[in-house]
């Protein structure tokens, strides 16, 4: 068996692949956060809870309505996105005139409420969610067994991330969005309904989180706590990537997943903190983030 730096290639590639899978979730979630932050200048602490809601909607759809994974993938983001729209209309919009930190506090409070309600109902251990039949089984890649489902995660995330990037950076709708970020009043003066755009953008970011949640359900167990610790890592990813940069969020998400995977091979004790250490280093060298623009 060949070895790289004293580690058998099988172990190395296996962990790298798992790192890519984690990176897919980091990328999807930090993309949602970046989209929301870019336009609303609000750090959406509720993002972790909305990720969890996506998984739970999928679980409930399966157990109460008999609707399977593929329906959930389509409908759960819509359902959770609608709750996001309600949150923005009823609560967040009142805070735009105030210090942006209040937005952070509000979304933090909402996260507590949502997580607490789900914990009350379902306890804190996970509910199982069945893997969709089409994606069970594994491919024998020689250096490891890659479960089909985990391969699907990487593929689907890449697709969604790139599609989002394309819409925002390369389409007319996206250009309105970016313009509204720079100068909302001017854009409003041109007749574009900026508040509506803001509401829909928040809804979209939330839907992205829910989409990630549905993808996570078959492998990570559906539990009320599933988003809570993950969201902090995603914050670090967003700080490293540079808040407000779409491509930055995607690349950083996947990249950090890979680095975390590598750390697990060579120095497993540090795997939890490596992302934070990188954040510290980036802050010292380039405070605006790797791809960020100093606002």
């Amino acid at each position, binding site marked *: 068996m060949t070895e790289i730096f004293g580690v058998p290639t099988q172990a190395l590639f296996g962990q790298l692949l798992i790192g890519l899978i984690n990176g897919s979730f980091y990328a999807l979630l930090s993309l949602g956060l970046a989209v929301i932050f870019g336009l609303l*200048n609000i*750090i959406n602490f509720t993002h972790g809870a909305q990720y969890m809601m996506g998984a739970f909607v999928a679980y409930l759809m399966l157990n109460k309505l008999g609707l399977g994974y593929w329906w959930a993938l389509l409908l759960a983001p819509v359902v959770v996105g609608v709750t996001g729209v309600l949150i923005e209309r009823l*609560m967040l919009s*009142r*805070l735009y005139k105030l*210090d*942006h*930190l*209040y937005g*952070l*506090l*509000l979304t*933090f*409070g*909402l*996260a*507590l*409420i*949502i*997580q*607490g*309600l789900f*914990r*009350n109902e379902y306890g*804190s251990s996970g509910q199982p969610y069945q893997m969709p039949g089409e994606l069970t089984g594994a491919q024998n890649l020689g250096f490891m067994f890659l479960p089909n489902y985990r391969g699907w995660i990487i593929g689907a995330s890449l697709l969604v991330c790139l599609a989002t990037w394309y819409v925002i950076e390369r389409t007319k709708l996206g250009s309105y969005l970016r313009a509204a970020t720079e100068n909302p009043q001017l854009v409003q003066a041109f007749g574009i309904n900026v508040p509506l755009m803001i509401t829909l953008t928040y809804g979209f970011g939330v839907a992205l989180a829910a989409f990630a949640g549905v993808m996570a359900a078959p492998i990570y167990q559906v539990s009320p706590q599933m988003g*809570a610790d993950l969201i*902090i*890592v995603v*914050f*670090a990813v*967003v*700080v490293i990537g540079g*808040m407000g940069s779409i491509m930055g969020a995607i690349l950083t998400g996947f990249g950090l997943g890979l680095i975390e995977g590598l750390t697990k091979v060579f120095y497993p*004790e540090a795997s*939890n*903190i490596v992302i*934070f*250490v990188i*954040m*510290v280093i980036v*802050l*010292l060298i380039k*405070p605006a983030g790797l791809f960020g623009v100093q606002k």
Partner: protein
Amino acid sequence: MSTAPAASSGDLRAQRVAFVVMVAVLAVAPLVIYPVFMMKVMCFALFACAFNLLIGFGGLLSFGHAMFLGSAGYASAHAAKVWGFNPEFAILFGTAVALVLGGVAGLLAIRRQGIYFAMITLALAQMIYFVALQAKFTGGEDGIQSVPRGRLFGVIDLSQPLAMYALVTVVFLAGFLLIWRVVHSPFGQVLKAIRENENRAISLGYDADRYKLMAFVISGGIAGLAGATKAIVFQLASLTDVHWTMSGEVVLMTLLGGLGTIFGPVVGAAIIITMQNYLAQLGAWVTVVQGVIFVICVLAFRRGVIGELGNRLKKPL
């Protein structure tokens, strides 16, 4: 985030009266209320006051203050249990650790402002959490257990509840008064000026970064004092004290009590701890209630309890 006008003599009198009331309550409380409960309230009140120094007067929202509470707790527990320090030295050691951590974290966090500052403190605290999880001496999930209460100055046996209570009260009042002094000092005035308009303060010749760093270190140190004391009272240092939910709780206590007020954090801490105690039977409802309080405070009750009271009386409290 709030504007407290400069204190006039009438204002100071109101604050002095409030202080006397607080001391009286603390003196009488152990006769009617379970002393361990009161000690918990005091430790968290001190924690919240320290946090408030940074946000209410410095305008810096730290979302990672648990790192000071927790690491000082671990340091103090370790010193008391493994090195056999007397409790007063264990607490001092814990506070010292928090001060150093405040300096290091502050240097990194000060580089950015507003939301970014909050994110950085959150991420740094999470890093400390994982270090605490992995490090041998913290005992991971088990925490540091069976921390001896010890003998204060080698003489006073702190396993007597009233003796411990007296020590905690003294520590709390000392920390409280220190914060009060910092706020009502030239340093405090400059800090408020920086909060109101940083560029103008810089143009007036003040090194804003240095002031902010100092505020961060003091705030962290006093939060550490609270944590170190708490570890001795409960004879336990655990991961709960470094977890980010603890950082969220201190924000809640201060927000509820009143950001930028002197007595707000104390009242906020008392309310939240009491609520946690009485609703403990209801399990996860505590989290929901806390979330609801957060949302209501942010949307409609931004001044907080003491802030509203002070507004009615037209005197800053």
